[in-house]
């Protein structure tokens, strides 16, 4: 009776609060959702680099990503001036790569083409905000069930590289890493992949992830609305969840849907019939029981208020372990990501098959105008 054992496991998972934390799939109400926006690349395959906001946030997800983190080294003299120099260099690198050109001193500039909708999105840990002397985002707390590996921990500098194609992506990561050699030590380069669709992507549990991401103005408001840490900037919560796919194999369809609160097949909430139906926690099934269990992932992930809304832009990973690189953008993690993640870490039915090993929070810099540099608003005029 595999179904019986699964149900017991789910119940035990709840009561034991074996809480490993996770926030994998859709939350929010149906009316907040919208299909992902069409890619904003020009016909040559380039997404805009200059603008009010950095690219790689509100725009549609590319198929491939690398989240790379560095800890900076400091020479004698002003740390703030050294940070400014690093950000000026990264700005130049990103502007070139995003338009299909090699960086300065590039030995393989040919690899920057074709464009592949490459975006680089740059964020700073609180440590670098402290160097700049402006900005307060703090760091992520420890969540129940965290089994963090230092190699995936909080860094000084985080760059999200995304592209539709892996060669151009690899070149961009390598070119920027070469330029940062000696200026910092790269802690990690976490590679991810998805098959982008109109309604999110399939994570490695087989679930549709990102169904209820906010769209349009709601997305912009959740990510860049005020109050935030800086105008036109936002924050990125980056978490690495390993998935126990062998254990997940043992769970039948009903058990999977029960743990998620949505049908794996089409993403419809168990309280409704279609993917666009709202997550209704009051709905009852034919037995008079809640259609969506109280410890189902979507029940806990559902924003308790508009302030809890965030925009998820995660990626699958594989290798020695498989799982999800959870990446969410939100104007204020203290009112959104952190309380939601605490709820999930305490009770999410999916925690049974999740192991959080990486965690970090980054201040995503405002966009840059031509002739300016990333972080200029933070570091001020020379």
């Amino acid at each position, binding site marked *: 009776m595999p179904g019986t054992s699964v149900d017991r496991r789910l119940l035990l998972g709840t009561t034991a609060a074996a809480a490993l934390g996770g926030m994998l799939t859709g939350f929010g109400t149906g009316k907040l959702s919208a299909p992902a926006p069409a890619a904003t690349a020009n016909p040559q395959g380039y997404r805009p680099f200059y603008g009010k906001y950095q690219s790689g946030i509100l725009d549609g997800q590319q198929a491939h990503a690398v989240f790379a983190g560095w800890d900076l080294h400091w020479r004698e003299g*002003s740390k703030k001036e050294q940070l400014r120099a690093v950000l000026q260099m990264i700005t*130049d690198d990103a502007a070139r790569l995003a338009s299909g050109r090699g960086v300065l001193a590039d030995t393989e500039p040919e690899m920057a083409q074709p464009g592949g909708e490459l975006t680089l999105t740059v964020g700073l840990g609180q440590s670098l905000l402290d160097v700049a002397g402006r900005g307060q985002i703090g760091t992520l707390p420890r969540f129940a069930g965290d089994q963090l590996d230092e190699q995936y921990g909080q860094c000084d500098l985080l760059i999200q590289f995304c592209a539709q194609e892996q060669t151009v992506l690899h070149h961009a990561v390598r070119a920027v890493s070469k330029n940062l050699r*000696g200026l910092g030590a790269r802690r990690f380069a976490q590679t991810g992949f998805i098959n982008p669709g109109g309604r999110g992507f399939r994570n490695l549990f087989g679930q549709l992830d990102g169904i209820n991401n906010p769209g349009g103005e709601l997305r912009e408001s959740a990510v860049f609305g005020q109050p935030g840490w800086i105008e036109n900037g936002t924050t990125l919560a980056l978490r690495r969840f390993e998935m126990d796919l062998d254990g997940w194999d043992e769970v039948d369809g009903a058990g999977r849907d029960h743990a998620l609160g949505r049908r794996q097949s089409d993403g419809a909430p168990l309280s409704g019939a279609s993917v666009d139906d709202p997550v209704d926690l009051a709905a009852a099934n034919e037995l008079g029981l809640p259609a969506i269990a109280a410890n189902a992932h979507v029940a806990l992930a559902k924003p308790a208020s508009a302030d809890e809304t965030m925009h998820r832009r995660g990626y699958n990973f594989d290798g020695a372990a498989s799982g999800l690189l959870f990446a969410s953008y939100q104007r204020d993690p203290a009112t959104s990501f952190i309380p939601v993640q605490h709820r999930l870490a305490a009770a999410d039915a999916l925690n049974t098959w999740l192991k959080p090993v990486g965690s970090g929070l980054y201040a995503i810099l405002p966009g840059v105008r031509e002739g300016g540099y990333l972080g200029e608003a933070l570091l001020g005029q020379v």
Partner: protein
Amino acid sequence: MNFRKTTALALGLGLLLTGCAQSADGQQPAPAAEQKTAGQAEALATSETWAKAAESGMSAAFGILHNNSGTPIALRKISNAQGDQIQIHEMRGTGDGMTMAQLEGDLVIEPGKDAVLAPGGHHLMFMDLQESLVAAQTARLKLEFADGSSTEVDFPIRNFDGANESYDEHAGDAHAGH
């Protein structure tokens, strides 16, 4: 040529982006606009300029120097605020046998043409750095032309493992000590 004027040039993107960079000592911010004196220097447009990071000893600077005028311009002397000895070098020979040596005479750029300074080709050579060239910072060099005009050009400093060409020990007299 005893008057000076400031010209905000429409330079290459790379220079614009580093327009607020500090000078090579890492402390003193520098204005974005280059200082040019009238003459051949006015005809110079630079792009893709960069210098190789080095803690000490020798290093090199590269880029594209374009002559916007209808007459040849002749680059004669390179200097910087640190007082480094900086030479214009050329590569001699081919393949693995290439060596570099100081260019004899000026680097002449014909009307409308580029002088391409690149690893393995012509380059500007720092002979013995007084201060480190630190990656991500910017080296500002003064380029003087045969008519006495001059201009300052920023060279963003980048890591580079190449540009380790060997010297022609018998060419010129400028390589003593190496």
